[in-house]
């Protein structure tokens, strides 16, 4: 698999604070790649750099081999990079259909086509019945789907999902996972930032782990879960040893 997106030695500093430190990673085409890490590890910052909402202090981001570091967000969207927001950002005053259409207009200038495309996308994420509701009236789960639908409506090649499962209850998560899988199966590459571990294990083909601004591990979900540095990063210093001891003892 070739890399659709490459992050090359990205560093992001805010004043004296280094949020992302010399991070490099690749997102292979056609797969679901996860970016995980404990709270405050820098994954949101790295995600913002990738999606173009922050300009990195140093380093480059490449997409299909092109340097896109300096491209603005909307140009990235035109090139086929879409994103969702962790804190859902619906256009509250608009209906679900109109919300999705804003994304669809990127590829369809005409109203009828854009609305039709919006309807089709809604079906893919299971929002068909809510199409004429006001977006502000949706449940949290509905809004998460709307985030997904709007991004999909831009017909992306690469979809960046920012904690799309956070805030959902277990049954809602179970409903959402197949939706995301299906998107991957339709040929859209996905990079997902997540801290719901169950989802990551289920969904991702490969996972990158970030802690204290540094990428510390990379591999399949199973590999990463066994990595002592990862366990330590999540559970605190010494946790990996204790865990190993428990496993060894058992």
């Amino acid at each position, binding site marked *: 698999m070739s890399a659709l997106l490459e992050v090359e030695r990205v560093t992001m500093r805010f004043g004296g604070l280094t949020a992302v430190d010399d991070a490099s990673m690749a997102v292979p085409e056609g797969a679901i790649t996860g970016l995980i890490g404990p709270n405050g590890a820098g994954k949101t910052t790295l995600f913002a750099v990738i999606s173009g909402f922050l300009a990195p202090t140093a380093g480059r981001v490449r997409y299909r081999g092109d340097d896109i570091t300096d491209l603005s*967000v*909307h140009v990235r*969207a035109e090139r086929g990079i879409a994103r969702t927001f962790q804190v859902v*950002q*619906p256009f509250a*005053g608009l209906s679900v259909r*109109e919300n999705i259409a*804003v994304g669809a207009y990127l590829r369809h200038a005409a109203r009828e086509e854009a609305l039709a495309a919006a309807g089709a996308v809604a079906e893919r994420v299971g929002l068909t019945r809510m199409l004429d509701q006001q977006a502000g009236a949706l449940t949290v789960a509905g809004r998460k789907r709307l985030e997904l639908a709007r*991004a999909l409506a*831009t017909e992306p090649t690469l979809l960046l999902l920012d904690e799309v499962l956070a805030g959902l209850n277990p049954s809602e998560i179970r409903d959402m996972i197949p939706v995301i899988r299906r998107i991957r199966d339709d040929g859209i590459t996905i990079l997902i930032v997540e801290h719901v571990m169950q989802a990551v294990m289920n969904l991702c083909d490969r996972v990158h782990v970030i802690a204290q601004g540094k990428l510390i591990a990379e591999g399949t979900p199973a590999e990463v879960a066994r990595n002592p540095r990862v366990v330590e990063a999540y559970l605190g210093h010494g946790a990996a040893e204790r865990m190993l001891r428990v496993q060894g003892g058992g």
Partner: protein
Amino acid sequence: MSALRPYAAILAVLAVLAVLPVVFTSGTMQNFLIFTLIVALAGQGWNLLGGYGGQFSFGHASFFGTGAYAIAILQERLGLNPWLALPIAIGLGALVGAVIGTLAFRARLRGSYFALVTLAFAEVFRIVANVLPVTGGAAGILIRLNVDPLNFQFADRAAFHWLTLLFLGAVMLLVRALERGRFGARLVAVRENEDAARALGVDVLRVKIAAITLSGAITAAAGCLYAQKFLYLDAMIAYGPWISVEALLAPIIGGLGTVFGPVLGAFVLHGIGELTKTWIATLTGGALPGVDLVLFGVLLIITVGFAPRGILGLLPRLRVRAA
């Protein structure tokens, strides 16, 4: 036929407005109607940027005044026919909009900051217009009375009414068309959430600048009509805060971000305003200056606080039709 359906309500309202000068023949009433239509037109300009785009300007006088002064100066100083001066004046309004928009939006001014900077621009225009010789300085500029349709002056007030209505109608149809198209969707997306819009491929800066440019053009057209109707301008009239306030009150009270809002708002405000003034005058035997504006201020607060969709939002049936 179905292609016309979204426009049917607008055409119906325009038809009603067109009949008014036939029903009301007094000069006072007809002047009132024309003035209200001009305010509604300026309000349409504001509404495009403020209602649909969410960028609240406190300085639409910049555009109104530019349109008004441009047509008056081209006509009186350069001898241009007002019909030819009209598109130039509207273009200049658009240009002022583009320049202010580019400066303000590039600097990422939003919310209160944008409101204040537009206000400051209008004040600068006002001070400059008050000293420049070409604007007549403080003496203002008078468009000479020369009643001739070729000269934009009509013996019959109804003709001017219909002309103003033609502009208003064209703008309403345009706004409705924009509302139903890509630009409108993007503009509203920018109002609702800039980051989300950006992520969906919307060039937020360009959309905002396009909106303020168009907004400037529409409000400049209102300025042109004002100048041609009342034939006199000075800096306070053209660039004064009154029109900035009128232009934002009409759409907010009528219904923010709707095609009918500015029209409804203008008629309700000025209707109530005139009635109040008359009522106070008969009650106290004299005019009480400013009472209408006190009422406007109260209505503004009530609307913002308790009826954010304006009067239109209180009329559920109409809202469905307008949607």
